[in-house]
């Protein structure tokens, strides 16, 4: 079976790939292959703050029994830009409670965990509230994702159900001055039944290699 390199060399031989460069054909083909592997776009960054607090506990169940607010399951997988699963990433998240308040005295709605062997993660939480100061900042969850050999990702997850977007986050995402792309606004899946409705949001994370 031909390798990708064999196929590319055959393309050069048959003239279906032309190399117009002073670099060596081998080097150009290697660069071509490398670029082909970058099949995923890195997750867009977003501001770190406010209210990052170090030494957050290893904990992926942030919602305590009886907590008010819409129960939320956050899940996803961590990849790199080549599409490879990152199995040694650590994800730290923090958010407000359902009323929009951060816990700065303790570690409520703050936690971190390592991804599993498939690069997957899950956090149990509630949908955060808007800040009580009526600012234009949408509901969000802060993420810091670290993995050896990769650039640390600082970003935020937003919710497509946020009333600020009026149901059209692609059109209205810039109403929040901190959101530079609708990619960070994730759809919300409702599960359960009307007596015990729950929200699920998937947020895949893609890290840049160092």
């Amino acid at each position, binding site marked *: 079976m031909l390798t990708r390199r064999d196929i590319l060399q055959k393309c050069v031989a048959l003239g279906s790939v032309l190399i117009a460069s002073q670099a060596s054909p081998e080097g150009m083909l290697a660069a071509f292959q490398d670029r082909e592997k970058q099949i995923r776009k890195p997750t867009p960054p977003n501001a770190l*703050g406010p209210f990052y607090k170090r030494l957050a506990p290893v904990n992926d169940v942030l919602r305590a029994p009886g907590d008010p607010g819409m129960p939320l399951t956050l899940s996803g997988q961590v990849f790199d830009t080549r599409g490879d699963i990152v199995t040694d990433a650590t994800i730290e998240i923090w958010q407000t409670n359902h009323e929009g308040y951060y816990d700065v005295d303790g570690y409520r709605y703050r936690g971190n965990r390592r991804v599993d062997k498939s690069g997957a993660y899950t956090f149990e939480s509630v949908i955060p509230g808007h800040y009580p100061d009526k600012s234009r900042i949408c509901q969000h969850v802060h993420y810091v994702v670290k993995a050896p050999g990769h650039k640390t990702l600082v970003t935020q997850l937003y919710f497509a159900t946020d009333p600020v977007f009026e149901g059209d986050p692609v059109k209205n995402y810039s109403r929040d001055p901190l959101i530079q792309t609708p990619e960070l606004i994730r759809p919300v899946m409702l599960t359960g039944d009307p007596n015990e409705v729950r929200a699920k949001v998937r947020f895949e994370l893609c890290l840049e290699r160092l």
Partner: protein
Amino acid sequence: MRPSLAILILLHCLATAAPAQTARQEKTIDLPAGVSVEEATISHAGNLVVAICSDHAVRVWSVRSSDLLRTIEGGREPSAVQFSNDDRLLAVAYEIAIYEKGAVKIFDTDSWKVRHDFADEAPVYRLTFSADGRHLAGAGDFVTYIWDLPARKKTATILPPFGGSASLAFSPDGAWVATADGDTFVRVYDASTGALHSATQGGLLEPMTVAFSPDGKTLLTGGVDKTISVVEAASGKISRTIPKQPGLVFFLDVSPNGKHAVVVYRSAERFADINHLALWDLNNGTILADFQKPGITIHGGTFVGDHYLFAVASGKQLTLWSLR
């Protein structure tokens, strides 16, 4: 009394001090219809006030007459403004694309011509000049830049491990730049190279402000954990902390003569509320004035003689207050 010693006395007495005087409203500036102030600061001599307005214009007024002197409309979104220490330059940072592209223009405050124009890969939201006006530093959400103005070039790009800097300050001799970083560190860098000199991790939460003492030996920092810390600039060692401040420590500054300090508090409950300011006498650790007013936002200010002059935004007006 030496400024560093005075700061230690302040921190010893901080918890027991009580306000003795109140603020005085000096001037009122009516804003154009439909315009509000997003950020403002006052020149070091106390004669000019500059504001980033909601219509993306930068406006400059005379403090003495309240007359509008200049409107700078760059067609871009201004993200920070700052005067040089001699007030001959005004730096305006612009956000061209959030997180991705920014620019800084430096205006001559006599002619209002652009003296320097830097374009960068990331916007900055905080600006500070070195005391001699030769260097400018700007901090964004992921990076800090230092520019050499006479050489017309960027001399350092500083990347903290993650996150950006909420505040930055040059040492009085211009040798160091200190940053209050979102990852909870206060870092000191060589201003000419950007090389890291020291990193201090005090509180568990992010610091929001950092300032040098006039002798450059000491740093004052404070932040979300409602604590003020004194850091030895050379070693990065914390020499003293005072917890239980009445709010998040959003901004602090020491007067050029080292006799006074101002602390601006941000509400922990309503994050957008920045309406509490205290002026301290560093020699005896007493509060000279305590200013708190609902419905306003306290912006930048400056020490002028024996008082602190600062800008306050409320609705359609920009007002100037002084604490003596």
